[in-house]
């Protein structure tokens, strides 16, 4: 920062940096760059440590986790914890929990994509009375603590006999209840040129045609962001399943994990951690594969983790 003092140098900073041996600041620049990497790498180590500790511990025997072992390395690496974790809990295999999580997450993605894109098209591309009022209400739900709706929702689903089914967990996804995704798609569609639908209209296309054959293909980036985030949020969701599911056979992973913790307490730390790793596995894989896309998505759309 301090070497930024001369104007000539900051201009050089702004342009594509190229090495210039004659420049006075070359040495200072290199020192600055080294300092940057030292600080950034130290921070990376701190930030990633809990995750690495989790993965490392999942391969360690119990004795090496309980005693406050800070090391990421063990001489006794084994897959025993995963074998125990895969056995599941309460007579239900972990594979079943995985399947349940997968059903819920895929359902969430499909429902959100369908309902949010259709609703967003109405907000972004059709003029109708009351549009701006509804839009304002939708934005307001973004700020609304959802705890205010969970009790009546629970009562209704209970009276309909739908507790302990996936209906309460999925119905909101098919009704665009995640206002965030609707908002995201509205913003995206508003940035598409208006000439597109005007031209299509002159050619006699109706809204259904415009939506399916012009908007949807162009919205791919927004649809991908939405899919990734609704999958991950559904996968990590804890409160919803905790409220609505009470048969272990129907549990998704986070709930199974809680059951596992309740029943084993700290007696089998290794298996508990291994199961935590398994529960996060799809999210971690998603992240590694789509990380660039996920991080870009956050910065352009203001998504939260």
């Amino acid at each position, binding site marked *: *920062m301090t070497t930024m*003092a001369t*104007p000539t140098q*900051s201009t050089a900073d702004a342009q594509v940096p190229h090495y210039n041996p004659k420049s006075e600041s070359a040495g200072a620049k290199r020192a600055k760059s080294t300092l940057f*990497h030292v*600080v*950034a790498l130290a*921070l990376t180590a701190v*930030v*990633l440590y*809990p*995750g690495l*500790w*989790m993965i490392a*511990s999942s391969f360690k025997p119990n004795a090496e986790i309980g005693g*406050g*072992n*800070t090391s990421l390395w063990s001489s006794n690496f084994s897959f025993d914890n995963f074998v125990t974790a895969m056995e599941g809990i309460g007579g239900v295999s972990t594979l079943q929990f995985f399947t349940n999580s997968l059903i819920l997450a895929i359902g969430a993605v499909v429902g959100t994509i*369908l309902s*949010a894109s*259709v609703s967003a098209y*109405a*907000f972004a591309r*059709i003029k*109708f009375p009351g*549009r701006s009022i*509804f839009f304002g*209400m939708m934005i307001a*739900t973004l*700020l*609304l*603590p959802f*705890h*205010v*709706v*969970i009790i*009546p*929702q*629970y*009562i209704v689903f*209970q009276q309909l006999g739908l507790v302990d089914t996936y209906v309460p967990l999925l*119905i909101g996804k*098919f*009704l665009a209840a995640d206002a965030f995704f*609707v908002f995201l798609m509205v913003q995206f569609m508003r940035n598409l040129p208006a000439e597109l639908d005007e031209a299509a209209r002159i050619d006699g296309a109706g809204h259904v045609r415009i939506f399916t054959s012009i908007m949807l293909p162009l919205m791919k980036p927004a649809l991908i962001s939405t899919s990734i985030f609704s999958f991950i949020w559904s996968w*990590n969701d*804890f409160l919803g399943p*905790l409220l609505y599911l009470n048969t272990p056979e129907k549990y998704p992973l*986070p709930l199974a*994990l*809680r059951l596992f913790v309740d029943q084993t307490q700290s007696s089998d730390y290794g298996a508990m951690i291994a199961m*935590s790793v398994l*529960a*996060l596995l799809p999210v971690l894989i998603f992240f590694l594969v789509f*990380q660039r896309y996920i*991080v870009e998505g956050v910065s*352009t759309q*203001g998504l*939260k*983790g």
Partner: protein
Amino acid sequence: MTQSPTLSRRSTSSAPALRKSRQRGADARAGYTFLLPWLLGFIALTVGPMISSLYLSFTNYNLFDPPKWIGLDNYTTLFQDERFLQSVGVTVGYVVFGTPLKLAAALAVAMLLNSKRRGQGFYRSAFYAPSLIGASVSIAIVWKAMFGDNGPVDQGLSIFGINLGGWVGNPSMTMPMFILLTVWQFGAPMVIFLAGLKQIPNDLYEAASMDGAGPVRKFFNITWPMLSPVIFFNLLMETIHAFQIFASAYIISNGEGGPAGSTLFYTLYLYLRGFSDFRMGYASAMAWLLVIVVGIITLIFFRTSKSWVHYSGDAK
């Protein structure tokens, strides 16, 4: 609704106008048809439940017997309920200390990363990763294990001769532990800050340099005002989010809010009242108080924002 103006105009207007008004009617129909999923969800899952939860908040309801109207009793009882007051204290402490620390970390790291350097993409992703998994049960378990008495964190600190008397089991250390958990997830606001920083024209900094401004002046005279809309957005969203912390509190405290109520977060107490004690009316009153508080905070943020948030539109 839209039929009548269309009809009345039809008799007097010429052909193009007629076509236009017909188009308007078709648009209205299409608009509501396309909006249908959201509209249904909004009525059935938001507005309806909000009204009934407001009603329930004035009743005694245990899910089995019909609700009994008790007026403001739930609300007055709340303020004599020590556990409720404790949950307010815990949550406010978490929001007041956790959110600014998290945002400060996010801004500091965003500024660190806001220069063309090799590895920037890697750092960005690495720092963002915790935000994606931070609220999961897995991470709550890891946190509990790492901060357990004599766990890795205690062990690590003892190398430096620091003994804090444990975390998970020590009522005075559970809050710092939760604050560390939220600060650890600084990646999400950081990425948004970073996007905002990239929007600041570099010539502003160059001009300031020419005037002899140092990094501190540059920060307060350029970065802060130019970034203020993004700071405002992050502050609002993170504050509202922080009020709603649940999964990690539930897991780390075994669903009880212990030790000594030090992790009895607001939403955890609401959950316990509603779904363990089946005091649905009481829990509804809690939920409405939360809505009111979040509403007031949002309002205050928007009101005060006029004095410190600068939108580029105003400047031009």
